């Protein structure tokens, strides 16, 4: 029975591939928003790279800072280096056919500078940008708050069309969030089941060879792999580690590295219950057998020198300069230490651990999409904690709830532990994750359980204010050891991301972090 389906699948697939114009791929989930000012997930960032152009971007191959929108030959530095006079290239059109002008650049900057635009991304640019004035329809003058030796590095934001917004106070709930108008290589809209992309050719600055693309939400990993193999889909953005070895030697599918610094964690609710005690958090740290978790959930192979998974003891990957190698990761369970710490914290063991006469019950949540990369991680962790004498109640958290509630500190009443991952590009700033939350100061915006520790706060300020590179590095090394001791997070591991694309999708360059920067070059060939 299966064979006949496969055969049917293959015939239909070949028919599809024979005339393939639409490149279809699975991403971890669908984008939360297509308005780049409100991107919170890597899926958002990848989709935005297709719909929009960043004013400046780094060439994914040779890292040269370049722009598809600005005519570099006419760019001038003015006001003793405080301003940049940008001249727009000719013939650039928005997806709706309107001409791209300097008004759009200045609108985007004004929107980011408007404090009523509730965009975490805008906040970063507010630190550098002072104003933007339109000098001519194709000339904008951007002024910075101070002189930068590399001002263009501060202009890597996505440009929005002025015509699509009524005010510079841009809100996340408009139709633009699912039906964007950009200047990017692809135009399209979000659907209920998929995000669609169609080549944007009526402009001078893009000529993608792929006619159309479709981003679907990841299915069961086994289904994804099979549909990729039989050609019903062209690519998978993130291949679960367990399936990588079997794809590695596949002739019709190629594994591609996606340079992204991702690390996994368990955030602990330090605001209430027994987890408010540092000893209890440390005991939990010793109650986990990370080695077993990695072997069973990630499918880690001890003989694999190229293992995608490596333990961490703090909020950085081991290859980062910020990683403090003097703090060793906890790899195995240490029951003795755990029990000593729990006793010290005043907990009593009677089969289960009791706190103030009640058994310690841990409510554990996990960003559901992680379950595709790490099989049953949530259950494995619950099992280990049950073995250690805690009762557990586990819940998967949908991507939507994770982004709207978990990382904004809205789940402190519902959960004691939250399992998630953070991804970084060149900027590994973690202040937002651990600084005491302050909406007015835009601090601690990703502080999951509203953790607050004056010592950690002062270290984070130390990092912000550091005048030397070593100063910043030392501050984060100190932060690393402070966090490894105070444990607002139980740090798990870094996990490399690998994509898989069918061999007929040619000339693929996957850019670090943004992924699709080089999409204009990709093409689909009939031959493998």
């Amino acid at each position, binding site marked *: 029975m299966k064979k006949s389906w496969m055969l049917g699948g293959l015939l239909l697939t070949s028919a599809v591939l024979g005339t393939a114009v639409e490149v279809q791929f699975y991403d971890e989930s669908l984008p939360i928003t297509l308005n780049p000012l409100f991107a919170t997930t890597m899926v958002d960032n990848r989709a935005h790279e297709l719909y929009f152009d960043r004013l400046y971007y780094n060439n994914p191959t040779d890292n040269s800072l370049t722009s598809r929108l600005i005519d570099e030959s006419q760019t001038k530095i003015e006001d003793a280096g405080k301003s940049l006079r940008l001249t727009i290239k000719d013939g650039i059109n928005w997806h709706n056919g309107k001409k791209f002008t300097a008004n759009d650049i200045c609108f985007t900057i004004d929107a980011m500078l408007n404090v009523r635009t509730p965009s975490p991304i805008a906040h970063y640019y507010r630190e550098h940008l002072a104003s933007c004035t339109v000098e001519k329809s194709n000339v904008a003058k951007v002024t910075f708050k101070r002189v930068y030796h590399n001002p263009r590095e501060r202009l890597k934001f996505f440009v929005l069309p002025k015509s699509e917004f009524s005010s510079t106070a841009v809100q996340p*709930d408009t139709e633009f969030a699912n039906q964007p108008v950009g200047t990017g290589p692809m135009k399209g809209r979000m659907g209920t089941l998929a995000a669609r992309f169609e080549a944007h050719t009526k402009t001078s600055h893009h000529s993608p060879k792929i006619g159309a693309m479709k981003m679907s939400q990841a299915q069961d990993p086994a289904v994804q792999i099979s549909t990729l193999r039989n050609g019903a889909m062209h690519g998978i953005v993130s291949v679960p580690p367990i399936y990588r070895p079997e794809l590695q030697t596949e002739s019709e599918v190629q594994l591609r590295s996606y340079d992204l610094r991702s690390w996994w964690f368990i955030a602990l609710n330090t605001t209430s219950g027994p987890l408010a005690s540092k000893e209890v958090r440390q005991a939990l740290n010793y109650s986990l057998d990370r080695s077993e978790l990695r072997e069973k959930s990630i499918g880690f192979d001890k003989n694999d020198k190229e293992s995608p998974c490596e333990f961490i003891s703090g909020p950085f990957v081991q290859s980062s300069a910020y990683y403090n190698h003097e703090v060793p990761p906890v790899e195995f369970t240490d029951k003795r230490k755990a029990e000593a710490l729990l006793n010290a914290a005043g907990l009593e063991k009677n089969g289960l651990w009791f706190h103030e006469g009640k058994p310690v019950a841990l409510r554990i949540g996990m960003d559901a999409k992680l379950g595709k990369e790490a099989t049953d991680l949530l259950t494995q962790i619950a099992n280990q904690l049950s073995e250690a004498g805690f009762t557990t109640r586990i819940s998967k958290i949908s991507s939507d709830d994770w982004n709207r509630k978990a990382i904004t500190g809205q789940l402190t009443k519902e959960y004691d532990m939250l399992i998630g991952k953070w991804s970084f590009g060149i900027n590994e700033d973690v202040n937002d994750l651990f600084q005491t939350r302050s909406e007015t100061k835009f601090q601690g915006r990703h502080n999951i359980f509203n953790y607050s520790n004056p010592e950690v706060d002062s270290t984070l300020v130390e990092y912000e204010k550091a005048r030397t590179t070593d100063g910043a590095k030392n501050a984060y090394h100190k932060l690393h050891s402070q966090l490894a001791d105070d444990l607002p997070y139980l740090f798990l591991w870094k996990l490399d991301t690998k994509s898989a694309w069918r061999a007929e999708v040619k000339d693929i360059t996957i850019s670090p972090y943004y992924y699709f920067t080089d999409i204009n070059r990709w093409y689909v060939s009939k031959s493998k």
Partner: protein
Amino acid sequence: MKYWWIQPSARALVAVALPLLVPALITALIWSLPGNPAEIICPPSICTGGEELAARWHLDQGPWAFYGHWMSSALQLDFGDSWRVLTGRPVIELMAQTIPNTLILIGFALIPITVGSVLGAFQQPSKRWDSVLVFLSVLPVVVLALLAAAIVELNFAGSGDDGLGYWVRMMAAALTLGIADGALSGSILGNRSMFEQENQQRYVGISILRGESNFSNTLPNLAGALVGQYRSRIVQLLSGAVIVEVIVRVDGFGALLWRGTLMQDFGVVLAAATVFACLSSGLLFFQALVEVLQNLHQRRAPKLTLESTEVVR
């Protein structure tokens, strides 16, 4: 049977009340959730435009104002915008995109059910097939939906929403709906037993003696029951459609409702639930009408010919 009109009137009354009641219940639900309803769309932690949003979505003047505004707009076919599923997109647009798929699905699913009803009415198939029908009747929709999804997903994972992929998807889903949860066997067995019992009535025997066909006699008496049965089947299909559309990945109205529910998109849930309620009301009203006609027909005195009166005498 002095009060025969009570039942159809009750149905008609409910048919009118339902489309008003369902949105009222959901409006009450929106206000019963913790926090300000506007925070569902714009959590203060990531959004500063709470007040403007509340005003824009008519959430700022309490449930009655909201309900009133929503109803008056809905009467002009303006169901507002999606709150979360596809933020800002007019719900009517989403419905226009998804309802046809669901109607096609239900339409195709009704084929086996209708065929089954007709067969049942003619006492087909014979009772030795009953074990098969009973087996079919216990197949849950989720199991058949899995089978359908298995066929579709592997071959049309990427191209399932147009061309051949679309139709294979729809057919598989429709077949699932048409068979699962006893839809097919229920229609066959239900009709068969209904007509079987009716055929045993005395008046049928007499009509056969009069040389009339029993079907022409039983049908008018069973019309109401038949329509009622058909109505409940369609309502059952609408419920099943939610499951089938999600599992087989049909971009239908049921799947839209499911997503709306998951994402607390009350813009979508309100509209979807109301449309479901309207459909149900329409069917209910139709049933009431048929019942009225049936009763009037039954109460119409038959014209007796001279011969027949002789026979009676």
